């Protein structure tokens, strides 16, 4: 740390990343809580009733952010897994495994809230529509990634095998995203686009963005927390974990 330059590679080892993650975690957790409080306020008290769907549309404030997170986290997870596969860096694979359960949670929530929104809007909890089916595949990819890693005794070998699965599965993410354009689906098109103005009231849009930011912050906090636990589990035999003050007895 000379001349004010931050040496980022210093944080590429679990030993130095563990305390850094511990310092960052509470900030992301607090931000997540504040943003969620603001987002819920907008979702229920500021955003008006929808002219067509009545109050049922309020599911959008968790459905869309959860769906975005499930796709985005998958790409980040596959990126870390691929990085670990290519450069054999142990922290990268740990980060990939730290993301997977949170990604699976958001994929589940996307399907769950979608079902509860589909029933009053389309008359069915589930249809084998391209968008819904590809999101279900994403959920199974997360589960498969975790199951494959858990099934292999040596964690480093498990890292490599599951990384290949994660990388092959990335193809599903653009399929989910473009499914509403490529196939004739029941699911509505994208709510937000870079090229068009948002197709909804400004307050509805704001609520969705604030909730998405809250989920982002939550995902970062949960990932950091899980990464810290994984570092301890995998390196319990090492001197640095045993020297931690929280490991004192």
């Amino acid at each position, binding site marked *: 740390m000379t001349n004010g330059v931050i040496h980022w590679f210093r944080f590429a080892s679990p030993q130095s990343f563990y305390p850094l993650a511990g310092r960052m975690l509470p900030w992301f957790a607090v931000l997540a809580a504040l943003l969620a409080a603001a987002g819920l306020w907008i979702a229920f008290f500021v955003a008006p009733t929808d002219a067509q769907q009545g*109050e049922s549309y309020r599911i959008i404030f*968790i459905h869309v952010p959860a769906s975005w997170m499930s796709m985005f986290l998958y790409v980040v997870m596959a990126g870390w897994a691929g990085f670990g596969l290519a450069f054999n860096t142990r922290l990268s694979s740990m980060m990939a495994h730290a993301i997977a359960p949170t990604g699976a949670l958001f994929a589940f929530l996307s399907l*769950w*809230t979608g079902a509860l929104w589909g029933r009053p809007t389309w008359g069915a909890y589930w249809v084998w529509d391209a968008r819904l089916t590809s999101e279900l595949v994403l959920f199974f990819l997360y589960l498969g990634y975790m199951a494959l890693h858990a099934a292999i005794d040596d964690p480093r070998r498990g890292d490599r095998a599951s990384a290949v699965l994660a990388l092959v599965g990335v193809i599903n993410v653009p399929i989910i995203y473009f499914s509403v354009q490529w196939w004739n689906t029941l699911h509505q098109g994208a709510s937000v686009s870079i090229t068009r103005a948002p197709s909804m009231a400004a307050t509805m849009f704001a609520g969705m963005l604030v909730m998405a930011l809250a989920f982002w912050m939550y995902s970062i906090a949960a990932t950091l927390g899980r990464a810290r*636990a*994984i570092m301890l589990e995998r390196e*319990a035999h090492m001197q640095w974990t045993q020297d931690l003050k929280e490991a004192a007895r």
Partner: protein
Amino acid sequence: MNWGSTADFFAMGGYGFYVWGSYLVTAACIAGEVLFLRARRGDALRQVRAEKGRNETAA
């Protein structure tokens, strides 16, 4: 303000089951993950302490 009364708020214009079913399950999942993460950290620290004890008796 969208709601005339508390009962109105919980009724969600007749969509209470769908709206609250979404929000409550989301809240429960997130709370569950936080509790699970805390438990996992506790287990991991116990594992580190166990390894440490093994090293100390060996030395």
